[in-house]
């Protein structure tokens, strides 16, 4: 993990609502693992805290994040100029690496909205090893980003793309219709979605790994601000930024 300054190379709208910000850092490009995040200082003074973003893509010595504008920090990022320098701490968090091997045939990737961010790298890691089916859900099609994914199926609340309904509806319907052999779930998105997916996985008796979001002050394990309640083990809480962000959903309490 390092703190470094990376120059912005490109800022591109993937959809009307989702922006990809690419910058150069050979250190990050080399060390990052699927599912890890970067903790970015969006401006020098204000807002005070860094903002965590999953790594979306890596190409040679460049690395990108994908985000939508939800508040001040993301809107400042969206206004960066080519050549501006980003103050980054990373790579942070655990990765999907330790969870992709195992006794299953097909990896089922389930994303809600911008929760898709870690999936391009996960897909790249899985491709040579497992079959992949990817389910993307969102309010509307402007929140769906199918780039660098494999075998993508869509659900939107407003029916503007794919099935009208939630990604869970789509997932259930699809699994009922298809036989993917032994499966394992990987999910990322709103907490409630991940909880529902985890509960469904439990019903099915399959392992389900979710990348969890909490508010974070440090992102590097020193503030204890990012706790999540556990269901197993002797500790009531774990720290999302360093013991996660990826957990097997049965081991944590999603709400």
């Amino acid at each position, binding site marked *: 993990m390092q703190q470094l300054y990376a120059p912005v190379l490109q800022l591109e709208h993937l959809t009307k609502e989702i922006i990809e910000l690419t910058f150069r850092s050979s250190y990050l490009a080399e060390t990052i693992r699927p599912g890890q995040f970067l903790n970015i200082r969006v401006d020098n003074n204000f807002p*005070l*805290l860094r903002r965590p973003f999953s790594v979306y893509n890596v190409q040679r010595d460049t690395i990108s994040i994908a985000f939508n504008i939800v508040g001040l920090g993301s809107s400042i990022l969206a206004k960066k100029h080519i050549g501006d320098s980003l103050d980054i*701490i990373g790579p942070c968090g655990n990765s999907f690496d330790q969870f992709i091997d195992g006794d299953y045939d097909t990896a089922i990737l389930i994303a809600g909205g911008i929760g898709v961010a870690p999936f391009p790298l996960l897909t790249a890691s899985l491709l040579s090893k497992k079959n992949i089916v990817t389910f993307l859900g969102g309010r509307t099609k402007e929140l769906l980003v199918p780039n660098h994914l494999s075998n993508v199926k869509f659900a939107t609340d407003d029916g503007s793309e794919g099935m009208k309904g939630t990604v869970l509806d789509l997932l259930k319907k699809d699994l009922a219709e298809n036989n993917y052999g032994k499966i394992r779930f990987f999910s990322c998105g709103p907490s409630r979605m991940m909880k529902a997916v985890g509960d469904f996985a439990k019903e099915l008796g399959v392992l389900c790994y979710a990348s969890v979001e909490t508010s974070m002050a*440090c*992102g*590097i394990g*020193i503030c204890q*601000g990012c706790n999540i309640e556990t269901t197993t083990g002797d500790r009531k809480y774990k720290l999302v930024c360093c013991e996660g962000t990826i957990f097997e959903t049965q081991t944590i309490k999603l709400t």
Partner: protein
Amino acid sequence: MNESFTLGSVTFKNRILTASGTFGYGNENPDLVDVSKLGGIITKSLSWKPRDGNPNPRITETPSGMLNSIGLANIGVHKFISEKLPKLKILDTKIIANIAASSVKEYGDVLELLEQQEGIHAYEINVSCPNVKEGGLNFGNDSKQVAVITKELRKKTTRPLVIKLTPNVTHISEFARVCESEGADAISVINTVIGMAVNINTRKPKIATATGGLSGPAIKPIALAKVFECVHAVKIPVIGIGGIMTWEDAVEFFIVGASMIQTGTANFINPSTGISIAEGIKMYCVKNSLNDVGTLIGTLETDKNVSVISSWL
């Protein structure tokens, strides 16, 4: 140029410490921070038993600050001694153990156990804790309780004993005086300021405990005023804390009269803040031909008629 500072039997290589709870147990991020360039590290508050801490969300951002309510989550003093201390001992910096407790006896027990360990150079006592005997009233809000804690702990150690005061009181100088007269070697000023934030969509507090501790640049003016009040009340050294992000901030505290400073929230944003500050201070001293950082301390120039107590605002 002399950057060192001596407190009781301990000489710190410089006057920069990391604040309790903002630097883990001290060895979490060796890649990001070379702790040998810091005067010392203050551990997360240690209690007798491990504490799980508060439910989430525990933190939220506020304008130029943050609120936290970690609930003093910590691994407990036993596990600290067995798992963390061996790794801290080999670091080339001073280790200050911060102690939190819910009874005077617990403060004493934790300190006694640490007293048997090598590698602990000093103690900082976090009195901003609910006193179970008093229905959860904060020790730190009651100067009598602070006096008792200081007196009891003073009996148990000759290592430097620092009491960390809360700013959430009417006259912090009263607490400073009590610490001094009960034999504390120094006081740390300030712990976090009570604050709150609300999510207007869910109508819930933004942190689970509703109120929490405000820290960061927002509180720097408050911290400076509290340090100012304390340095005029006592002769023992005052360690300044609150919103220090840059070496300029640190110099403000020195000028007001702090003998050392701590960086807290800043560590979350730039883990190596303490090192940048140490370097900045060195440059400032060279530029101003000071051969000892100590010559800066308490050099504030005020008008004769400025009152520490109260003025028309």
